[in-house]
């Protein structure tokens, strides 16, 4: 018989490394003579979309199009250290370095523009720099870049952002271990086949507080990817080991969900800005994944009154719990 249930999973998650562990990131922004931009940073975009949002941030600060930016990343020979892509930290830590470096170079450009336009209340918008009170006084970003170079001014800036926190009290464990926290909640609806132990996830509703969504469709992608991973973690993924030898040796045996297994996902972006993040933003990578398994397990409990305490809740494991319950 198929039984349906609904479950909720919630989480909060410390951004970055916390507990006094070094957590720093660098970015370098260079303005070329033709007004194009080169950004260098050791950050790694392995699919989460950080390259895109860093271009957005630099573009936002300098009032330019983000496709004029060339990004050089993850090359120890050419890029300053940004620390690992882990702990959901890139947007939050490297993002701050991007904004800082952009603002530093903007200051230099601003002084040149003030000199040329004879105005002080300048705006950087749509590839132009102009006076708010006298909008007819304007100079293109491209021309301004050239003027900066002609004057021999520094047209490259490096910024370093550090979110390393104090450690907690070693005796009491009290203190603020992390620079900030992310919050997320998910709802899962499942159908459990009590005859086979098969669980079908019918729907996931996922809300994540990201502070500020720099790129909303990027955030949705992260949420959907995280849910798919959480689903595999809850139901199928397992590494078997025997006497120190791995028995699960390839992806034919390690069961990640296929597109057929991933249910409709309804992502909700919650924006509660955090003052320490760039534009109020914080990370979403792991927070998107963490609530999924508890939500699914709670939904299973809601459907059939069985508590799963060991993962994965695969066919055999769940059916054993169902049989044990029937026996009692």
């Amino acid at each position, binding site marked *: 018989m198929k039984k349906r249930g609904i479950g909720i999973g919630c989480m909060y998650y410390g951004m970055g490394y916390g507990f006094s562990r070094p957590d720093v990131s660098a970015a370098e922004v260079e303005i070329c003579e033709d007004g194009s931009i080169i950004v260098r940073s050791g950050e790694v975009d392995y699919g989460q979309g950080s390259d895109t949002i860093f271009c957005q941030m630099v573009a936002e600060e300098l009032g330019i199009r983000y496709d004029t930016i060339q990004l050089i990343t993850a090359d120890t020979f050419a890029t300053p250290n940004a620390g690992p892509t882990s702990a959901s930290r890139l947007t939050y830590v490297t993002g701050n370095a991007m904004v800082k470096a952009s603002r530093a170079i903007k200051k230099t450009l601003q002084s040149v523009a003030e000199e040329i336009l004879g105005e002080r209340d300048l705006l950087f918008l749509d590839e132009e720099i102009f006076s708010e009170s006298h909008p007819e006084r304007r100079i293109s970003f491209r021309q301004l870049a050239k003027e900066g170079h002609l004057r021999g001014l520094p047209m490259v800036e490096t910024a370093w952002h550090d979110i390393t926190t104090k450690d907690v009290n070693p005796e009491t464990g009290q203190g603020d271990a992390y620079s900030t926290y992310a919050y997320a909640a998910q709802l899962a609806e499942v159908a459990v086949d009590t*005859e*086979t*132990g*098969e669980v079908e996830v019918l729907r996931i509703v996922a809300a994540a507080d990201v502070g500020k969504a720099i790129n909303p469709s990027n955030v949705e992608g992260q949420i959907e990817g995280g849910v798919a991973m959480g689903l595999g973690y809850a139901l*199928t993924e397992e590494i078997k080991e025997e006497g120190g030898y791995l028995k699960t040796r390839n992806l034919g045996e390690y*069961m990640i*969900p*296929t*597109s*057929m*297994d991933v249910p409709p996902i309804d992502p909700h972006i919650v924006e509660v800005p955090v003052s320490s993040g760039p534009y109020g933003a914080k990370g979403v990578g792991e927070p998107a994944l963490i609530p999924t398994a508890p939500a699914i397990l709670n939904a299973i409990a809601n459907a059939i009154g069985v508590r799963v305490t060991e993962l994965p809740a*695969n*066919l*055999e494991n769940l*059916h*054993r719990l169902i*049989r044990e319950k029937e026996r009692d």
Partner: protein
Amino acid sequence: MQRFQFYNPRSVEDALNFLAEKGERSKIIAGGTDLIPGLRLEEIRPDFVLNIPEINPFRGIKEMDHSFWIGPTTTFTEMVESNLLSRSFPALVQSAASVGGPQIRNRGTIGGNIANASPAADVLPALLAHGGELELQSKRNGKRIIPLAEAILSPYKTCFRSDEILTGIILKKLELGTRSAFEKLGRRKAMARARMNLTLLLRLNHREEVSELRIVPGAVMPVAKRMDRTERMLLGKKPEPLLIEAASKTLAEEMVEVTGARWSTEYKIPVLKNIFKRMMKQLLIV
């Protein structure tokens, strides 16, 4: 990748001649979805690989007076898309539709599923339930026809001789009123090896008694087979719930007689019983 010579025969005769000479050192390749992983893992080391999908007489589905003929290199996708098969053998088509994912179904063939003789095959047990027969050809002995039930000797081992090619699968038409069903249990919805599958064929007479029943579970025994003791229990009787319940117990016993008790039997016994009862119920509602 290991080294071997790839031979692309132009005709059936060409292929049979090739095997007559080099069969012992050769492997046939159809879709390659079993063979290529085998070559990669170096489980097999042939000197020659004989490519058969381009031989036209090996393809297609034909209707005869009392039977159907299916070419060995017919892909699962072709089976699923065949109206002829869907009308006549819906459970067989369901088994083909359950294989891997679209990529595997586009390449994998019915002949490869049989010849590979995997204990976890999906189409092979369904064919067994349908009473499939195999047409084998060699240069030396010409054509011979054997029941599929006798062709699989042990896991991954068939009775095919090294100079033989499986050149056709023959299925007798089912008697009017035969109901059939296939169900597969896997760890996920696609690209999943069967944890278990079950094919049932059932016909009732005008008194609502079982006049024909075929039960073939797959992926639970080293070699799939019809569960005749369970079948006989129901033959000639009205399939009442109590009898079906008793039959499901016998079915599980028949399985354990073959496999012995293993870590997985604890799961397989109740679940095989459940799936059997559920499918019987569905077939009886029709």
